[in-house]
């Protein structure tokens, strides 16, 4: 739930409770005041009648005066003084309903020691109507107050939390590989500023670490290159010596192989970090179809040797804007994989259209998850001489140009798809 919704919800809930309680309290207070008034007027009336009864011994005619129903009963015997005020409902034949009444019931004695009973009824329907009216107004007042305060609360909260949402939006777009550090705007709210500072510092630290690491790995690969070249050159010289025996020759051979592998590995890593550092920034329009064709031509003899059948069906030149060298590396890596991991008498099918390029080839059934092959140093098989960087280079290149690459394998058919354009559907 959004913070704003949640705070509004709680506000609403608490306000409702407070208003119900307050409303009830007010209702009962008003009701009490009204009853007291009624009771007082009933008692006053009763006292007047009583006084008259005590002096004149006649039943006065008050009904006209007070508009209340008064019943006076004279008794021939003495009674104990008694008085009570109660509610009752009396059937009204006119409206065929019970109407609430408040009545006073009083017993007393006159000077001649003869008792009388006075009962005065006062209808409550008017008073109830008043109460209802008051309640209704109160309800409307409370309700509109609630609405207004919710609105105000919402608007204030929205304004207050705006810097927070701004920061979240900016932080969400932060890219550690991007060229800018995270810069959150300053606000006049101390807590948000604190949060922004913490965020800024954290991401700055992350970015610095990342850049250091990137620089380190690039420098390391670069610095390793020269000593490796020296080792290779010395091994090259050593193997040219005339008086080497077979054992020495085997030693040189091992040195040579290990050095070559290390060099390939290092070159691959260097290439990846160069792509990350956007060293290959020159772009031009290149035809992937042309590159794929010349790539396949390069492996012509190898494919003939393995008796691999090649099929190209292309409906488009597949022009993409990218670096020529990288385009070449991308396609030739894909093709060389299709050739290397093929079986004798297998096939390679290359499909090229305006949105994607796919290479399907026969091979061996795969035991690992195809997507894992894009990870660095993940090898197709343990005994392979490969260094396990080919497909991660492919992934790096395609990512840096916003292309997507996917690998699927069913039984022994491998398929790699390079999508360089989102499909455009034409109307009509």
């Amino acid at each position, binding site marked *: 739930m959004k913070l704003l919704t949640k705070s509004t919800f709680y506000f609403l809930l608490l306000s409702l409770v407070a208003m119900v309680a307050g409303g009830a309290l007010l209702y009962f207070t008003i009701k009490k005041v009204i009853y007291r008034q009624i009771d007082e007027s009933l008692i006053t009336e009763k006292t007047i009648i009583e006084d008259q009864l005590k002096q004149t011994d006649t039943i006065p005619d008050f009904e006209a005066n007070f508009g209340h129903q008064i019943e006076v009963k004279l008794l021939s015997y003495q009674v104990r003084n008694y008085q009570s005020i109660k509610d009752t409902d009396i059937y009204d034949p006119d409206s065929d309903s019970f109407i609430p009444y408040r009545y006073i019931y009083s017993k007393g004695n006159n000077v001649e020691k003869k008792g009388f009973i006075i009962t005065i009824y006062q209808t409550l329907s008017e008073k109830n109507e008043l109460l209802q009216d008051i309640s209704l107004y109160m309800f409307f007042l409370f309700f509109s107050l609630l609405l207004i305060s919710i609105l105000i609360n919402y608007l204030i909260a929205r304004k207050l939390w705006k810097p927070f949402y701004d920061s979240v939006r900016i932080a969400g777009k932060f890219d550690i590989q991007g060229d800018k550090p995270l810069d959150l705007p300053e606000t006049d709210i101390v807590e948000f500023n604190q949060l922004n500072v913490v965020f800024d510092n954290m991401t700055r630290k992350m970015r610095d670490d990342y850049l250091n690491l990137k620089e380190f790995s690039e420098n390391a690969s670069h610095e390793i290159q020269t000593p490796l070249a020296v080792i290779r050159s010395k091994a*090259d010289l050593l193997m040219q010596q005339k008086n080497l025996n077979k054992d020495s020759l085997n030693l040189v051979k091992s040195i040579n192989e290990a050095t070559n592998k290390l060099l390939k590995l290092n070159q691959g890593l260097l290439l990846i970090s160069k792509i990350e550092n956007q060293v290959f920034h020159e772009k031009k329009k290149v035809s992937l179809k042309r590159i794929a064709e010349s790539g396949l031509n390069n492996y012509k003899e190898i494919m003939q040797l393995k008796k691999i059948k090649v099929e190209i069906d292309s409906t488009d030149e597949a022009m993409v804007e990218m670096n020529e060298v990288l385009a070449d590396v991308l396609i030739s890596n894909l093709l060389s994989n299709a050739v290397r991991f093929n079986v004798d008498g297998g096939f390679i099918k290359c499909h090229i259209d305006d949105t994607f390029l796919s290479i399907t080839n026969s091979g061996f059934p795969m035991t690992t998850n195809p997507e894992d092959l894009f990870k660095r140093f993940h090898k197709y098989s343990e005994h392979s001489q490969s260094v396990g960087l080919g497909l991660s280079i492919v992934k790096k290149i395609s990512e840096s140009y916003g292309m997507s690459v996917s690998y699927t394998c069913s039984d022994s058919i491998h398929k790699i798809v390079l999508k360089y354009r989102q499909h455009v559907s034409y109307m009509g």
Partner: protein
Amino acid sequence: MKLLIVEDDRSLSRSIYDYLKLEGHICEVALTLSDAKSKAAINKYDCIILDIGLPDGNGLDLIQEMKSNRLTGGILILSAKSSLDDKLVGLKIGADDYLTKPFHFAELSARISSIHRRNNFLGMNEIVFNEIKINTDDNQVHVNDKLLVLTKKEYDLLLFFMANRNRIITKESIVEHLWGDSVILTDSFDFVYTHVKNLRKKIVAAEGRNYIKCIYGFGYKFIDS
């Protein structure tokens, strides 16, 4: 051939020096740009092997200076950076070829002899080795005056062998020479074997001698005896 090696890494320049001397070239070494400039001004070299990243400047300066002083001689750029920029600029201002470090010595030899062939106008477009005659203008090979029909890769392989006679050539360097180094084809050496076998067969079929000797586990050696 007289060669100048401009390379600041002592160990590497020493190796290049040793290897090219083995090939029978006369070599000199310059460890700095200023040293290279003064040497190039005094002597005439057939080819200069030039590292770009030198401690006292960019090796490309030497090319510019040589061109403005109208000094002749081939230039082969060596660079640890495989940046396309360097390559394009280098070739544009007059370098003959570009080789990325680390390289195989066999590749270096092949490049140097190719530069040498191109820069010499005195009928050097023909390589003659005993009964084998290679014309690098029309890419034709004759053995005992009989035309040998070779595929592009076999032709390249033969030239590669010619530039590295009596040297052990590793299979790796052949793979890189024939298929380029952007591709990691480290486990496809059997293709090399087939190519070499076919080339040998064709030469022998034309009554040429079998010069290609297999060095088990390593690669091949083109021997002239």
